[in-house]
């Protein structure tokens, strides 16, 4: 089984969010960047579990600048066999998917995994785009995946339940909670990662179909208004008359 895992780099959840250049650009100063947790915990670890059970290889791919290589090495330290970095700075899911599709279209992966979404934009768009470019089935938000020959039995999250699907491979699948458990890289893995192959390739030209056009910060919270614990009729009145949510 030849597996590809698409990994993204995002600001850590606890990072302060600020913008520069008249709120036109995200301000990365002082921000801690991490491997997108859903790519790392669910997609990558699931790929490793499949390899451990039925053999094959796990390749990670990332579209991003050289500064992201420590995050790619982390994926290798957790257990991926090799990595590809496409030397571009995509500013949308579309731009990243385009680059990854162009890089892997001739490589015949049996399974392409990615996290359900990135924790910064939560668009959950890349997997479907990649699947369309590669003409493969796509299943979003998988919480369970078992292989049966050339098919995968996948549970995916839907509103108020789960759906069990049988999917013909090759396919693209995005992973959600339940698919696998986070693994912490150990010293042996970290040492091994240093000599694992990380190839770098150039990007392909593409159209700017999605461009960032600025940010707006929400109006600062008015501050919490405290209601006396004895007077819940007052809280209900406020929720009805002022907040208008009842």
């Amino acid at each position, binding site marked *: 089984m030849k597996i590809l895992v698409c990994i993204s780099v995002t600001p850590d959840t606890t990072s302060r969010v600020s913008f520069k250049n008249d709120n036109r650009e995200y301000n990365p100063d002082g921000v801690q960047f991490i491997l997108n947790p859903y790519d790392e915990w669910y997609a990558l670890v699931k790929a490793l579990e499949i390899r451990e059970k039925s053999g094959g290889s796990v390749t990670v791919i990332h579209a991003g600048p050289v500064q992201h290589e420590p995050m790619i090495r982390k994926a290798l330290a957790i257990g991926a066999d090799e990595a590809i970095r496409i030397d571009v700075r995509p500013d949308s899911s579309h731009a990243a998917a385009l680059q990854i599709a162009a890089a892997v279209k001739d490589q015949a992966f049996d399974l392409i995994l990615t996290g359900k979404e990135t924790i910064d934009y939560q668009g959950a768009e890349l997997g479907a785009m990649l699947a369309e470019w590669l003409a493969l089935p796509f299943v979003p938000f998988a919480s369970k995946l078992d292989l049966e020959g050339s098919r995968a039995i996948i549970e995916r999250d839907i509103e108020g339940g789960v759906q069990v699907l049988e999917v013909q491979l090759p396919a693209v699948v995005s992973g959600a909670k339940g698919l696998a458990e986070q693994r912490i890289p150990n010293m042996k893995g970290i040492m091994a990662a240093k000599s694992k192959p990380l190839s770098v390739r150039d990007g392909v030209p593409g159209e700017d179909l999605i461009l960032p056009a600025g940010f707006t910060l929400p109006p600062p919270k008015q501050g919490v208004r405290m209601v006396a*614990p004895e007077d819940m009729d007052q809280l*209900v009145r406020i929720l*009805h008359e002022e907040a208008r949510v009842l």
Partner: protein
Amino acid sequence: MSVLVFIETFQGGFKKPALEAVSYGHALSRLMQGQCQVLVYGKTDQPGLPGRHGADSVLYLDDEDGLADTAWLSGIIAREAAKFGAKALILAQNSTSRGILGRLAVSLKSGCASGVTSLPEIKEDRMEVSRSAFAGKASARLSLGGPCKVLSIASNAVLMKTDGQDAPVEVLTRPEPSGKVKVLETKRISGEIPLAEAERVVSAGRGMKEPGNWGIIEDLAHELGAATACSRPVADSGWRPHHEHVGQTGLAIKPNLYIAIGISGAIQHLAGVNNSKVIVVINKDPEAPFFKAADYGVCGDLFEVVPRLTAAVKRYKEQHH
């Protein structure tokens, strides 16, 4: 300049987010001086009903269990968008849109955005849309290009139009599915309001002390017509099912009302609920960080406050009905 909206049925009818998407499509079509066509997928006796919410015409695909075959489904929608000459394609943001939004953007060679919260600004042949980013800490504007922009609309973000009439329906013939994706089973958690789409949510954390104490949470949720949710430690220790876990690794929700009971408000939890319109926090610890993110706070013993709130809601409902 016309708009195509894609929606699915649910148990013979339509969910509110689907009808919100229709209302959005209607408003956008009028902004662009065009028509709003709605493609209805699923089983229903009322395929023309979206007309009441702004559809000028309806295409009806009478089928079931095809939503998971994302290539097949997006192929049908893209073909109808081209036939109709749609300049925008609107979906409700849900588990279906996650499967097809990106596919449609690629096949229509256009930009897309998920979880859009307001009508776009039309700038010549581009569209500028807003969506939430950084777990609700900011709103991002995106400029979309291409002949047919694809948007999924966040739930509870648009006002529903309700003054229309049933629309004329044209039934579509069902193309053969690819057979590459088959639905083996759909398991629904019955008798509960699905958390992802709930307008009101009552959520509780470790302050509840033990799982046997959840009765007061369920009573309040029942009285409010709310879904129940919980924090990560509660789900991880098996007190509540995992599908109730809201927060960064669980579900991100944006109800109109979120009541957090006995939850301290860790940043990972806030990441899943920041987009709620109104947040009420009930906690006995005045230093709980959640109070900083709340609109209304009650500092007190939840075992006293929650039943009191339930009784107050009951009284309110008796007065208003």
